[in-house]
């Protein structure tokens, strides 16, 4: 067992975990924060994307011990009280989600994209999202939502 301490959505947490515990398991099983999902186990689908020290990371591909001392933001920490983050609002406005399962990872990934590239083209958005799979929307409205959130829609 190893003690892991990190800040999750601004709150410091410490838990004793097995060394093999993945960051996503730490969030879901140890902190009962179930907004972050597991969709594939092979780092393909991106349902588990969170931010670690400000960068998007697939939390199924990182051990909890590797995040020791880090600041983690999950989908639960994105909104400010009742006010949705602009990316969350854009996803609602443009119907960029259906079943909602890929949505947390998709939103977290999209937020990081705009941190790195505030005005991405449609091609740049599609390339960035290569690591986030959605089975419901055909991506059409996800692209639209991200372009609107970036203020770059035609």
């Amino acid at each position, binding site marked *: 067992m190893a003690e892991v301490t990190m800040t999750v959505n601004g709150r410091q947490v410490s838990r004793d975990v*097995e060394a*093999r515990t993945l960051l996503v398991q730490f969030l*879901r099983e140890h902190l*009962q*924060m*179930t*907004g*972050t*999902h*597991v*969709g*594939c*186990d*092979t780092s*393909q*689908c991106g*349902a588990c994307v969170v931010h670690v020290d400000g960068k998007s990371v697939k939390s199924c591909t990182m051990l909890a011990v590797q995040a020791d001392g880090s600041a983690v933001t*999950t*989908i*639960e920490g*994105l*909104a400010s009280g009742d006010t*949705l983050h602009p990316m*969350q609002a854009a*996803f*609602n*406005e443009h*119907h960029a*989600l*259906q*079943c*909602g*399962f*890929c*949505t*947390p990872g998709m*939103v977290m990934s999209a937020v990081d994209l705009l941190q790195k590239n505030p005005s991405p083209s*449609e091609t740049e*958005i*599609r*390339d960035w*999202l*290569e690591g*986030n*799979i*959605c*089975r*419901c*929307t*055909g*991506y*059409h*409205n*996800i*692209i*639209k939502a991200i372009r609107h959130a970036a203020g770059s829609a035609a």
Partner: protein
Amino acid sequence: MSKKLVGQPIRRREDFRFLRGEGRYVDDIRRAGELSAAFVRSPHAHAIVKSINADAARAAPGVVGVFTGADLAADNYGSIPCGWVVTDRNGEPHKAVPHYPMTRDRARYVGDQVAVVVAETDAEARDAAELVEVDYEALDAVIDLTTAMEAVQIHDEAPNNLCYDWELGDEAQVDAAFAKAHHVSKLELVNNRLIPSPMEPRAALAEYDNGTDSYTLWSTSQNPHMLRWMLCGNVTDIPETKLRVIAPDVGGGFGVKIYCYVEETVCLWAAKRVRRPVRWTADRTEACLADAHARDHLTRVEMALDEEGRFLGLKVHTIANLGAYLSNYATSIPTYFYATLLAGPYATPAIYANVHAVYTNTSPVDAYRGAGRPEAAYLLERIADIAAHDLGMDPVEIRRRNFIQPDQFPYETPVALTYDIGDYEASLDKALSMIDYDGFAARKEEAKARGKLRGIGLSSYIEACGVAPSSLISRFGAGAGLWESAEVRFNATGTVTVLTGTHAHGQGHETTFGQLVADALGVPYDDVEIVHGDTSQIPMGMGTYGSRSMAVGGSAIVKACDKVILKGRKIAAHLLEAAVDDITFSDGNFSVSGTDHSKTMAEVALAAYVPVDFPDDLEPGLDENAFYDPLNFTYPAGTHICEVEIDPDTGVTEIVDWVAVDDFGTVINPLIVEGQIHGGLAQGVGQAMLENGVYDHESGQLITGSFMDYCMPRADNLPSFRIGYTETACTHNPLGVKGCGEAGAIAAPPTLISAIANALDVTHIEMPATSEKVWRIAQNGAAAK
């Protein structure tokens, strides 16, 4: 008059919980004292299970028990049923085979459940599952469809691995049409095997309450009542009164979550056995191995034509793969959801289909988005293109010439269906105009200058949705009716609770049904709550699939609203001291005709629960239940056209334009309908270009057992789509709706293959048209020139 919500692009209210990470999926629900289950699965495609030694597993840390099929058999757990009896050409029922929750003697596909470990944690259960020693005697695997009927027998009950040899249509009439034909166009094609892959893997959590001898099962189900029915009516001797099935938020279904599965059945059993809640969540490899797969047909199609390109007769021979066991509706898919659609939008006078459905050592095959209808549309549209090529006609013209005309409805096809309404040429014309069909030649030249091969392709499809009229499908062999139920309940404070037997797993019912009810009852949208997915809350239901939720479930809600209004008129008549016949209802108000006397819906609702001076013949309460059984299927139809550009040096196909023109009848919420079209298109493009469920033909190993190998469509594989509508309202349901969930998945494969073949100047390319396949053809084409 307040603004009507039906027809408006209302933003979804369910989004907020999903966007905040507050959705509640099965794996998010935790019960005190719960255990985890891990399955021991056969690594062999076909093997006799000689013995199972679980001693080491039982001694492992955290293990509470290790169980096999024999333990479930001892508690009277029987076979998981197939609910649709298909009658073969000789009048015999299909060869049914048992599918026990965990096999008792023989493993029949890689992933077949052999034993289960129940332990304190998921990690401990998985670790211990590795310690279970199973002694297998491996047998030859049956994988190849072309030889399945001559291969080693998989089930004692099914000689030659044949489930049925079935036919539909008049063979003699078709032969006569072929005898007088000017030309016969022919094609052999594969409809590739798909792994449906909703993003949320299947999961189950079962709990047993000893005090009441009752169970609760949380399941990733598209139809919780049907799951309860099968578990209680077929598999176990648990009464339906003692099993509550809850399907909470479900992360996509697409058909694969319709069925009763081994894993949830085992969790149910184990929860009582160990007297603690038992959970199981599939990992993605388990999903690939043991979810029901889809499609997987080998087909020979022949079309007889006259000199003008008119279709005279269609002959189809298909071998359909059912996998190792029969999933719940497996038998119906390559028959009554496939061959009945072989008229398509065309007035082909004679059609004959023969289907051999076979068992193989692969995962069971059942319905997935479109289910049979994509297979029918694909072969029809492929043969239409080839016929046009053979006769030197434009592919648009051959379709136009064969369309059923608007004045021919209702139109009885030669394959058991009667289309109520449609206008296929209107959709075709609109799509041609949207894509600027006449300008294609110039675009092709311009692409050529850039070194790209540009192609254009189209398909005109029809489908049967609004599943399904009980009387019709019972004649086809269905063991259940496919009505839907709804309850519309006013609460005393004037809010409305709507209980629907459909289930939303992405479709947005909480929004669209809310729009319907708010309009029908004249109450604020925010006062309407839609409840679904819980057998102890919803009186009855048949779930969501086959684009049935609005056409059947929505119609049931309308019917229940009508009953509420009728009851409300009686209450209003009492309150206003008028005759019921003099009370009219409009926009949320009950009025006495010709006066200014009226009561609001809220006042009537309150009075219903405070019935201080009600007469004897007026019941308190404002709460009505309705069942709706459709009179016919609905028949959405349309034309899709796409253009592709192929890089001959890499074989990469880029979809550069896509127009989808569909007739779904009345549209309740265009935002949601467009989302359904986009999603269906993505899955259809996936089938046509990327996805393929592959088993090794020797070993029977699943080669595509993860998202590393099974190629899911990603954002950079797809274009933005252009959507258009035509509208002929369905004639037989109160909303005029037809359903929109499956159109994209049906239209996309033939559209895209048509365009790729056009770009490569070949008549056909098998799905999936991967870059490698396309590159080889492009290179051969270049060499030939």
